[in-house]
């Protein structure tokens, strides 16, 4: 099997996917949730189905209807997303809904101020940056600098695919997406290192005749069963939670699902090819 030899194909597939994501990011952007831009989310459960129109009428009494989005959740739930409300206004609104519909139970309320969102974005970016630097240092010490760079490019690939997918799907971006992205980075780097470890071992034992490219390809092919089996065992719980775990963590799980697939792909088809490409170019220069 020659995976590295066909690297142009694999890298083109990734490039196309990333470009599609970037176009979507530039044209329709991300659907930022209240965690990032502030606002209020109230979720109610009712015994019978309640129409969004009826909730909109209540919102109108508070002059909120134009700044609110009301959604039906499953059979008899209602989700209201609106501006950041003062505590008194929030209480009045909830009491009013309760008064109109005595069976209403408040399931969830989130009120987030705008400063919290800014801090979250800054904190997340900082964490990503520090994590990237730490990973580069660790891999450079245990392997070589070029391995670190190839791993980071693969990580960037995964992050861009997931963020692009969220833009295309129009899914809401909240704190869980950040947690998911960081998980994906952890998983993908783990996956990549396993292959790099085999390349390192092959280079140590390699006969003089074998080129770097041949060693790398051998490593990727030999670790392929492991890569596939690990993806399956990691995807099993993700799929189980995605379908059975309820709506609360659905976005988190979708991000993980897309990210794991991207991470597995990038470990096999991006990280090692980039490493080979990097080595070949340097050798050509020398």
């Amino acid at each position, binding site marked *: 099997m020659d995976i590295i030899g066909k690297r142009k194909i694999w890298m083109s597939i990734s490039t196309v996917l990333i470009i599609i994501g970037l176009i979507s990011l530039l044209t329709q952007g991300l659907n930022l949730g209240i965690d990032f831009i502030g606002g209020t989310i109230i979720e109610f*459960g009712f015994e019978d189905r309640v129409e969004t129109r009826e909730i909109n009428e209540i919102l109108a009494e508070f002059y909120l209807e134009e700044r609110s989005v009301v959604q039906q959740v499953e059979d008899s739930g209602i989700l209201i997303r609106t501006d950041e409300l003062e*505590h008194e206004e929030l209480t009045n609104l909830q009491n009013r809904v309760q008064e109109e519909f005595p069976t209403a*139970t408040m399931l969830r309320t*989130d009120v987030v101020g705008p400063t919290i969102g800014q801090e979250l974005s800054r904190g997340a970016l900082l964490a990503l940056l520090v994590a990237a630097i730490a990973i580069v240092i660790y891999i450079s010490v245990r392997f070589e600098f070029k391995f670190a760079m190839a791993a980071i490019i693969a990580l960037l690939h995964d992050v861009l695919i997931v963020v692009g997918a969220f833009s295309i799907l129009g899914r809401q971006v909240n704190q869980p997406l950040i947690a998911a992205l960081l998980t994906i980075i*952890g*998983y993908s780097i783990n996956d990549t290192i*396993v292959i790099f470890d085999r390349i390192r071992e092959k280079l140590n034992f390699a006969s003089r005749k074998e080129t770097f490219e041949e060693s790398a390809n051998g490593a990727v092919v030999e670790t392929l069963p492991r890569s596939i089996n690990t993806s399956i*065992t990691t995807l099993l719980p993700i799929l*189980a*939670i995605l379908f059975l775990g309820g709506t609360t963590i659905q976005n988190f799980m979708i991000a993980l699902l897309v990210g794991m697939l991207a991470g597995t792909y990038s470990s096999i088809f991006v990280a090692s090819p980039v490493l080979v490409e990097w080595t070949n170019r340097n050798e050509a220069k020398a």
Partner: protein
Amino acid sequence: MTWKQKRMLRLASVLIILVLSAYFLYPLNESINLGLDLQGGTQVTLEAQDTEDIRVDDDAMRRSMSVIQNRVDEMGLAEPIVQREGERRIIVALPGVEDPNQAIETIGRTAQLQFKNEEGEVLMTGEYLSDARAGHEAQFNRPIISFEMTGEGGRRFAEITRQNIGRRIGIYLDEELLTNPVVNEEIPGGEGQITGFESIEEAQQTALMLRAGALPVPIEIIENRTVGPTLGATAIDQSVRAALIGLSLIVLFMIFSYKLLGLVAAISLIIYSIIVLGILAGLNATLTLPGIGGLLLSIGMAVDANVIIFERIKYEYRAGKRLKTAVNTGFKRAFKTILDSNVTTLITAAILAYFGTGIIRGFAITLSIGIIASMFTAIIVAKLIMDLVLDTKLVDNEKIFALSRR
């Protein structure tokens, strides 16, 4: 040390860790703290605000913390948390609170009680109050608060009432007039009553705030996350079921792909689960919904460590080594791989735990615990079980191990 002693040592360490975990886990329904997203409750982030007179400093924050702590303690909840965060923020977690909106209002109000004369000058504030209780007044059955003052407060109150006989003294709560009675005579002893409440609930809430004291600086609610008890219960049911199904699928897959080795993996996975939950209970960590996500991910990684080892054993066996040698070399070679791959993930998780807040941190902590426990079970526990199995010599058959030379 002979290999036998080494093995005994390993067996003993695994058993000790298992017993310790079981000890921390007992009884199961009380040992693990559930986050507010799982058991229902409210978490608010408060931010102290500067006023024209007072700037928020460390002292103001300390006093605010203690006032809020008092107010929260009066609510009689199971395990509330009041925690300072950063320079001017306080996080309050109220698990299982029945009326979140009222609780938030009680926590967030300044509750500055003021006595003013007819000219609007402040004569006295609520800081001299030693007690305040809500009740009903005898004559019209209106809700009232009866208060008592400290010794010095009582003397000042007597003086103020003496100077204002025949005039009105307004009683204000946060600049809002509650009642405006005419003083008939000097009031000694520092006892009195406040009327002007719309309901007994309002009087009770105000009395609570007066007992706990006024906040030295106003605070603003900048974040409020409330989960009703029904949603929390649904979330925990669903995630436990999902986790069990996910685990079963992994076990089935492993046994299907690796036969006896897969069974070894399944047993170490169960041991892994006990250890992780035991560590969580022992550290008194709080399990949140994202935390469950982190745990499931670490299960994936625990299995991955087994997959790496088993694939390596297969590889070594195919290269012509004897079964026992293949197993030993497989574990030894795979160790380096597992170490490097897990350390990089651990670095990410540790950075997240350090920089992240709230859910991100909860997730990172469970992930870190999970990674460490997974390395332990994959490298120590799985090897131990393999050695014990190989010793029996009953199973020296490549098919049971899903191995072949081709």
